[in-house]
C-alpha cells in the first residue's frame, strides 16, 4: 500500500482544489433552502395557500398505516380548504419505511418543492433520521404516529401529536388491574419494530409499578403469522392477563390463536390494538381486548361522529387512530398557520405551533407541552360486541 501514499496526497490536494473552485464559483449565492419571506398580507380573510409536505409509508410492508394517515390528512385538507382562512396543498412522498428514502423524500419536499412544514414520517426510526436534518434546516416537522421515547429531543422544530404510549399504556394497565384483579401477567411484543419495543418497555414499567408479576416475556417479529409456540407456552403458565405490544395485524392474529387454544384471560394491548382492523381480522376473538387510546370512534362527541361518518362515506372504512391523529395533525397545522399569519414562514409557524393550546380535535383536547409532546388524555377501551366501548 506504500506506493499509493504519494498519489493519495496528490489526489487529496486535487480534491481540495476542486472544493475551492466549487466554493468560489458559487459566489452567486443560494437561497434554495431558505424559505421565501412570508407574505403576511392577509387579503379578504385568507392568507393564501400553504404547501405542506407529507412523508409517509405509502408502499411496502407498512403501507396500511401510510394509507390511513393519507386518508386522514386528505379529509382534513378538504375541510380546511372549504372553511378555513388558510388553504392547504398537500404533497405526498413515499418513504417505503426506509430511513434513507425518508431523508430523500423530506429533502425533496423542503428543497425542491419548498414546503413550509412536513407531516410524518410514519415510523419513529425514520423520524430519528429525518428529524435532525429538518431541525437543522429549520423546517417544522410533525409526526402523527411516532411514539418512541426521545423523538422531540431531536430539536425545537420537531413536534408530534401522536399520543406517547407512556401516557396510554399505564392507564390501560391500571384499569385492567383494578377491574380484573390481576396478579400475574405475561408480556408479548414484536421485537423488530421500534414502535412496539418502545411500547413493551412502557408496559414492563407500568406492570412493575402496579406490582404485578411477569410470568414470561415472549417476542415475535412483525409480519409473523404463527404465534402458536409463544401462546402455548403462555397458556401453560396460566397468567391472569396478557399484555401485547404489537401492530394490529399481529395483535389480531395473536388474539385469534389465543382464543383458539383456550386462553380466555383479558388481553391488554398497546397503541397497535387501537384499530377497527383488529376487530375486523380477529372477529369474535377480539372480545375483551383492552386498550387505552386518545381515539375512540364511538365517542359521544359531535366532531368525532361527523368525522367517522364522513370518513366512512368517503373510504368505506371506520377511521383508526392513525387516520384520526393525522386528521388532527393537519387541523393543528392549519390553526398554527392561521395564527402565524403566513403560509411560508417556517420560523413563525414553528413558534405558533409550539404555542398551540386548547385545540379541540377528534382525539380530544390537545396542547403541546414545553417539549412539543402532546398533552392529551386517554380513554380505556374494551372490545365488546364487535365494537370499542369505554371500559368503566
Amino acid at each position, binding site marked *: 500500500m506504500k506506493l499509493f501514499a504519494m498519489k493519495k496526497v496528490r489526489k487529496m490536494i486535487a480534491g481540495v482544489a476542486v472544493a475551492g473552485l466549487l466554493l468560489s464559483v458559487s459566489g452567486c449565492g443560494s437561497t434554495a433552502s431558505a424559505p421565501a419571506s412570508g407574505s403576511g398580507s392577509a387579503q379578504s380573510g385568507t392568507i393564501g395557500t400553504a404547501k405542506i409536505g407529507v412523508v409517509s409509508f405509502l*408502499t411496502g410492508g407498512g*403501507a*396500511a398505516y401510510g394509507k390511513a394517515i393519507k386518508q386522514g390528512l386528505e379529509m382534513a385538507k378538504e375541510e380546511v380548504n372549504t372553511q378555513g382562512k388558510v388553504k392547504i396543498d398537500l404533497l405526498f412522498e413515499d418513504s417505503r419505511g426506509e430511513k434513507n428514502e425518508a431523508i430523500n423524500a423530506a429533502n425533496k419536499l423542503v428543497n425542491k418543492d419548498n414546503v413550509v412544514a412536513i407531516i410524518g414520517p410514519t415510523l419513529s426510526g425514520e423520524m430519528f433520521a429525518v428529524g435532525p436534518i429538518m431541525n437543522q434546516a429549520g423546517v417544522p416537522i410533525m409526526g402523527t404516529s411516532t411514539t418512541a421515547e426521545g423523538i422531540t429531543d431531536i430539536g425545537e422544530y420537531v413536534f408530534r401529536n401522536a399520543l406517547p404510549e407512556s401516557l396510554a399504556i399505564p392507564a390501560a394497565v391500571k384499569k385492567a388491574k383494578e377491574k380484573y384483579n390481576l396478579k400475574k401477567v405475561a408480556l408479548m411484543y414484536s421485537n423488530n419494530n421500534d414502535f412496539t419495543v418502545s411500547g413493551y418497555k412502557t408496559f414492563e414499567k407500568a406492570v412493575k409499578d402496579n406490582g404485578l408479576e411477569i410470568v414470561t416475556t*415472549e417476542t415475535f417479529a412483525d409480519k409473523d403469522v*404463527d404465534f402458536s409456540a409463544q401462546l402455548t407456552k403462555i397458556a401453560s403458565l396460566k397468567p391472569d392477563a396478557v399484555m401485547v405490544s404489537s401492530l394490529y395485524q399481529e395483535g389480531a392474529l395473536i388474539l385469534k390463536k389465543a382464543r383458539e387454544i383456550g386462553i380466555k384471560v383479558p388481553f391488554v394491548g398497546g397503541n397497535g390494538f387501537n384499530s377497527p382492523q383488529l376487530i375486523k381480522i380477529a372477529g369474535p376473538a377480539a372480545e375483551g381486548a383492552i386498550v387505552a387510546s386518545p381515539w375512540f370512534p364511538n365517542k359521544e362527541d359531535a366532531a368525532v361522529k361527523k368525522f367517522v361518518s364522513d370518513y366512512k362515506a368517503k373510504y368505506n372504512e371506520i377511521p383508526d387512530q392513525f387516520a384520526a391523529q393525522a386528521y388532527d395533525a393537519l387541523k393543528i397545522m392549519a390553526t398554527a398557520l392561521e395564527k402565524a399569519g403566513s403560509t411560508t414562514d417556517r420560523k413563525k409557524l414553528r413558534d405558533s405551533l409550539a404555542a398551540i393550546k386548547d385545540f379541540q380535535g377528534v382525539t380530544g383536547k390537545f396542547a403541546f407541552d414545553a417539549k412539543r409532546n402532546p398533552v392529551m388524555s386517554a380513554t380505556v377501551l374494551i372490545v365488546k360486541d364487535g365494537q370499542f366501548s369505554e371500559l368503566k
Partner: protein
Amino acid sequence: MFWQQLVNGLTLGSTYSLVALGYTLIMGVLDIVNMAHGEIFMFGAFTGLILASHFHVNIFVAMLGAALVGSLLGIILERVALRPLRRRAVSHLAPLISTIGVSIFLESVALKVFGPESQAFPQTLAGKIYTIGPMQISLVQVVILAVAFGLMLILRFWLARTKIGKALRATAESTETAGILGVNTNLIIVLTVSLASGLGAIAGVLVGLTFNAVEPTMGMSMGLKGLAVLILGGMGNITGAMFGGLILGVAEVFSVAYGASSYRDAVAFGMIILILFVRPQGLFGAKDQTGGR
C-alpha cells in the same frame, strides 16, 4: 406442553416444506434459486382467498384454483425471466437477479391490486378442535398436515414412477443427456417451474388458512425460510426439503418454548450456517454434490 409444541412445530414445518419443495424442484432441474417463489406463494394465497371469500367455493377448490394461477405465473416467469437467459452463457447470478426483479414486481403489483392490509379467510374450517391425549389439534392443522404430506407423497411417487417424473429427474441430472434421449427439455423445464409454482401457491392457501393472514409481503419472509430449508435439506433434494422443513419448523417452535423467543429468527439461519460448515451438502444431500457447484 411438549406434545402440543411438537404439533405446532410440525404444522409450521409442513408449510416450510411445501414452500421449500418449490425451490428444490427448480433448483434440481435448473440449478437456479428462484427468488420469486415467495411472491408466487403470496399470489396463491390471494387467489385462494378471493375464491373462498367472493365465490364461496370449497377450500379444496380454492386450492386448486390457486394452483392453476400459480402454475400460470410460473409459466410466465419461465418465459420472461429464465428462458431468455438459458440460451446464453451467463453467470449463475443472472437468473438470481432476474427472479429478484420478478419478485419485486409481483410484490408491488400485489400491493397495488390487493392493498396493503392483511386479510383473513372466511371461517370455514376454523373453530373445530380435537383433543388427542395431551394435544389439541385444530381442523385447520389437520388439513394442512394432510394436504402437505399428501402432496409430498404424490410428488415423490410421481417422480419415481411416472414417465414424465423420470424425464424430470433426467433433466435435473443433465439437460443435455435428457435431450439426446428424446426429452423435450424446454417443456420439462416449463413443467417444473409451473409445478413448483403450483405447489407454492397451494402452500400459500394453506398458510393463509392456518394463520389467517394474507398480505402482499408475506412472500418475503416465507421465501427466506424456504431458502433456509433448501440449504438445510440439501439443494435439489426432495426428501431434504420435506424433512428440512419439518426440522426447521420444530426447531423454531422449540426455541420459543424452551429458549428465548427473540432469537427465533436467528434459528433458521444459524442452523443453515452450522449445516454449511459441518455438512455443506445438507442433511440429506448426497456426498457427490458437495458445495462444489
